[in-house]
């Protein structure tokens, strides 16, 4: 296990103007599983190749532990990359593919044979030793590719979208395999994905990249609760954003077009902010009943709703047009069981589309982050 440290790493592809990886600083602690997350073209695969030593960084420093590997060629870096489409050598059978790294390290053939057998057992590839890659299924190919990387016992394992070419069932299987490998092998894993759910599921820490720059890095929960920017919030499917202006005279208050909201003291200077609040944090009550306890109450109109089994997700509109998602975790609890005859879902009528409801946004569940002054206002006007 080893710490991977990046400092100010920058790379521009020859013949292009804009850096594909722009001043990235990032740390993966020993034994950590770090996800490089971002939309396609954000530079995450390029960053992985820089860590692998397959591209030379223009600037900055890459450290494995205390060792500066910035100028070390890929084959002596002790980091192995597994590519997106497995890249098994088609002219070699499974055993020889797995043995490749050890053969290049000129290990004695008896040792190679033993290590290959061990990997074949670990990856449940028994009986496929003499098959060609073209005779394997997608999941088997991916397991061979992993075995081929792990057999050299790298300090760092780099995975480029390792599961994206697999169907849903195999993907779950492979994810579990990677998680169990992480526990049984002493290896720091950095993997690239565009799938935010996959990153949350697997990673100890996520680094979200846009346009070659790290937007935010931290544990997965942080991206939901405390997004750093609007793009981060939206990438994580957070659509509950309200534009306002923070002023902290005495208590912290955010002034919006829909009234003033109390927020728990954000570590921010006064000025334009976004308020973000998770759908499940918003309290909702029928419009004809007394509003829930507490401040930050606001009336809204239900636009549509989707049953999610035990829960219901509502899309509601505030008076001035901003739309919020609200999750009703106990749809018929205290509010009666008057099933709506036309919904067909057995849902009570009080949160039917076009009904008025009362919302309450608990101050401690509102997260504020800086807003570019012009952001958010234009679209409010558009909606009106």
């Amino acid at each position, binding site marked *: 296990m080893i710490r991977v440290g990046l400092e100010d790493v920058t790379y521009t592809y020859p013949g292009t103007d804009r850096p594909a990886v722009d001043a990235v600083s990032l740390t993966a602690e020993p034994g950590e599983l770090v996800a490089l997350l971002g939309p396609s073209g954000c530079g995450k695969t390029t960053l992985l190749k820089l860590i692998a030593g397959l591209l030379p960084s223009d600037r900055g420093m890459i450290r494995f532990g205390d060792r500066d590997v910035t100028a070390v060629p890929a084959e002596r870096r002790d980091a192995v990359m597994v590519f997106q489409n497995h890249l098994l050598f088609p002219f070699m059978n499974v055993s020889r593919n797995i043995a490749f790294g050890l053969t290049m390290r000129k290990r004695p053939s008896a040792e190679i044979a033993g290590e290959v057998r061990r990997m074949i057992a670990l990856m449940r590839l028994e009986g496929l030793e003499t098959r060609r890659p073209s005779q394997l299924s997608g999941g088997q190919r991916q397991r061979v590719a992993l075995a081929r*990387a792990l057999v050299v016992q790298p300090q760092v394992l780099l995975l480029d979208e390792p599961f994206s070419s697999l169907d849903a069932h195999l993907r779950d299987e492979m994810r579990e395999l990677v998680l169990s490998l992480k526990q049984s092998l002493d290896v720091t894993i950095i993997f690239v994905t565009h799938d935010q759910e996959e990153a949350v599921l697997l990673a100890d820490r996520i680094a979200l990249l846009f346009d070659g720059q790290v937007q935010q890095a931290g544990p997965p929960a942080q991206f939901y609760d405390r997004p750093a920017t609007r793009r981060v919030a939206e990438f994580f499917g957070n659509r509950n954003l309200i534009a306002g202006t923070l002023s902290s005279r005495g208590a912290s208050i955010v002034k919006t077009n829909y009234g003033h909201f109390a927020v728990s003291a954000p570590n921010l200077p006064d000025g334009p902010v976004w308020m973000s609040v998770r759908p499940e944090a918003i309290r909702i009550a029928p419009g004809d009943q007394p509003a829930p306890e507490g401040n930050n109450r606001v009336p809204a109109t239900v636009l549509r709703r989707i049953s999610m089994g035990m829960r219901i997700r509502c899309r509601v509109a505030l008076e001035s047009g901003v739309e919020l998602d609200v999750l009703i975790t106990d749809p018929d609890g205290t509010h009666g069981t008057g099933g709506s005859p036309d919904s067909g879902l057995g849902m009570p009528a009080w949160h039917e589309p076009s009904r008025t409801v009362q919302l309450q946004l608990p101050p401690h569940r509102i997260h504020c982050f800086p807003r570019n002054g012009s952001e958010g206002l234009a679209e409010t006007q558009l909606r009106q």
Partner: protein
Amino acid sequence: MDEWRAPRDRIRAMHTVVIAGIVIAVLLPAIPLVIWSLSGGWWFPRLLPEQWSLRSWRYLASPASRVAEATRNSVIIALATTAVSVPLGVPAGRALGLYRFRGKRFAEALVFAPLIVPALAVIMGVQVVLIRAGISATLGGVVVAHLLPALPYMVMVMRAVFSAYDPEYEQQARSLGASRWETLLHVTVPAVLPGVVTGALFVFLISWSQYALTLLVGGGRIITLPVLLFAFVTAGDHAMTGAVSLLFLAPALLILVVSARMLGGRSAGVSGLEGV
């Protein structure tokens, strides 16, 4: 996996067309050649010769016919042309098949121009250069002349191979601990070898069948099989024409068998020839 399919099918189709062409062009005309080479006298309208004779084969084996010398020259020139074409054509094909660079279209036009412009049209200019260089009427000069029509084919085959080749295989090898040279040896070469062999066979056959270029640059001093064959054809000696023709066809038949085996069998590659 689908992205591999298109180029593989293209290469396979190319092979099938070439093989079918060789079978039709080589095997069918060979039958009358056998009869001719064994005939003592054969005139219209007889279906078969009146007399059979081994005269042409005996003369073929004697030094007086210069067949041995011509065969030796043909083999040396064709092998040398191939030996020069491979190291020139493989990197050129890689550059054209894999990379995008400024002036690529112009480079392609220049490389493939000899496929369109007849070599005969430019050979007099080339001959002046060869005379200045002092290699006109030598085996080396003839090899240079043969490169004109042969090299474009090598580049063309290798460009097709490399356009279906994923250079990330090389990165994968490096990442697994292979040095630059080990990567070339253990990954790149096995991946493109079937293509290199195909291209080399093309080049050998093109050089083998050159007549006019050999005659002009060789100045009559370099005798190859086609030059000799033409002499017998113009002399009207059907028996000798048949015998030399069969000798001339031999490597083509051999290559047909070799490449058919390569296509039918176990050859594989990152080049997209896998499973062909």
